[in-house]
């Protein structure tokens, strides 16, 4: 067991270190086979909906240069299953848990968030940027007014849990979206989600994904995530930001922290190496040892920029 000395604070919640898993790339019973989840800063669970969702048809995944395009469509067993299984298991294992919330309609989100009131979840992450569902998700996250109204309603529903809004990168101006979320009461921002992408099979001439398009993630999107975090940090100097997108080693995690993130999440890279979040947390510990000024800022809940 590694000892972590470089903690961080995200919207008031203490994290053992700045490394979390990203939603949809961590599943309690799968990922806990490979490392001790209590050694991460936090784990973010798969988007959870009011009732079980079946997701999109398969194939749901396609490779791309330094990336992966996925269209799972938020398949999940629903909030009741989550509250009875994943959440208690993760809390018992000592994890700090970010519950990612999904919905087709504002009411879906409200139902889930209501059930999470007084749950042991440490933070909520409101997924308003999933490119793989027809209703909800991205259509909410790209419209500032809709997003403002949603977050306002969610705040009323659940005063107890700190929430982060997971904003999409594919908007004309991310800062407008970010401001709408924080004005409505989001305690933090999770930036970024996947970008809409697709691949085509050149033998058949048809899309590889059954759903035609999916979300691009992995190292390919690293520069885009960094630019979004940088821009939002410039516009919102005090809002806690969780940096996401293309992190594949401790150095790329560090880039996000220098861009102004308080903490980071690791997505696709955990799919290619189950232990990656744990390994990166360990390696980041060493890199932060060498950067006491940055480490001190993070430990105080502040950011580099």
């Amino acid at each position, binding site marked *: 067991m590694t000892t972590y000395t470089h903690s961080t604070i995200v919207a008031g919640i203490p994290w053992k270190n700045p490394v979390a898993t990203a939603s949809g790339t961590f599943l309690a019973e799968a990922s806990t086979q490979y490392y001790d989840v209590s050694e991460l800063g936090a784990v973010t669970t798969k988007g959870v909906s009011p009732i079980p969702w079946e997701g999109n048809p*398969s194939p749901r995944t396609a490779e791309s*240069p330094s990336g992966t395009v996925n269209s799972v469509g938020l398949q999940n067993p629903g909030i009741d299953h989550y509250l009875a299984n994943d959440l208690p298991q993760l809390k018992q294992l000592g994890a700090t848990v970010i519950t990612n919330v999904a919905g087709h309609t504002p009411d879906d989100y409200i139902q889930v968030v209501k059930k999470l009131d007084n749950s042991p979840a440490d933070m909520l992450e409101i997924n308003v940027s999933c490119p793989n569902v027809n209703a909800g998700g991205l259509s909410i996250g790209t419209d500032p007014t809709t997003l403002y109204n949603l977050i306002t309603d969610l705040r009323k529903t659940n005063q107890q849990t700190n929430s982060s809004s997971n904003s999409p990168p594919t908007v004309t101006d991310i800062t407008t979206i970010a401001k709408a979320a924080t004005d409505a009461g989001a305690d933090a921002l999770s930036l970024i989600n996947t970008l809409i992408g697709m691949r085509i099979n050149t033998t058949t001439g048809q899309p590889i994904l059954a759903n035609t398009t999916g979300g691009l993630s*992995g190292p390919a999107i690293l520069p885009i995530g960094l630019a979004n975090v940088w821009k939002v940090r410039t516009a919102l100097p005090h809002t806690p930001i969780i940096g996401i997108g293309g992190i594949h080693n401790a150095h790329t995690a560090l880039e996000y922290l220098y861009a102004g993130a308080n903490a980071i999440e690791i997505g696709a890279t955990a799919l290619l190496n189950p232990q990656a979040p744990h390994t990166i947390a360990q390696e980041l510990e060493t890199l932060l040892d060498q950067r006491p000024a940055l480490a001190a800022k993070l430990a105080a809940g502040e950011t580099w920029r």
Partner: protein
Amino acid sequence: MPREWTTATRNPHATPARQPGRRTVPVIRVQALADTIIELTLQDAHTARTARPGQFVMLYTHDQSRLMPRPFGVAGTNGDTFTIIFAIVGEGTRQFSTLREGDTIDMLGPLGGQAFNLDQPGDYLLVGGGLGIPPLLYAAQRLAAKPDTRTTAILGYRDTRYADTRMQTHTPHTHSITNAQGDVLTLLNTLEPNPNPDQPLTILTCGPKPMMQAVHQWAQTHNANCQTCMEQRMGCGYGACVACTIPTIHGNTKTCTEGPVFPSTTIIW
């Protein structure tokens, strides 16, 4: 469409057993079995000792721009080594085909929550098509070690009978056919596959989906237990991404951790 969620039956509070992660292993042997079909022998004691037939390993290319794992069924084990047999179909398998003895490769596994169940004594009919044959080779290897079973293998090939000699080392009852002659159903219908009607008949099948569906139907009419080893594009292989689902009577179900072997009756064909 709410449904019974397969994982809900497990104890959610159990601390999970730790599995070995992604690791680099030595390439022991590379042998071409046909024009574009290669047998790769890798050294990994954990896989060699724990893999069950139907389980698979993930292999990763050395090309840092092709990140995704490639799944391959374990085709046999020997001491600390195991083999896989693969066809060169895309860029990843093309790169694997250039591996040489002494090289290394990254792997994860063995993976697969449900392997072929070989507990039942009696007759086993292994029906494989194309690159679905490798997992059946491993099933035959294991069945050969069980005195209370008798294995018949029925193998369909596109052209080269790349696995017949390997299958024959496990069972003398090996029959095969190439596309030009017909398919495994042709063989199933001409053979007397259940010579001992008192014995339970278990069918293990792996291959193209239409083939497995036909085998499933044949099993239904012959009152046989049929286990199918399914294929799907995978994002992780260990249950985290929910990319690898196939439609079953329980809803969209993960091939990696809820399969890849399923009772043929649960598949929505």
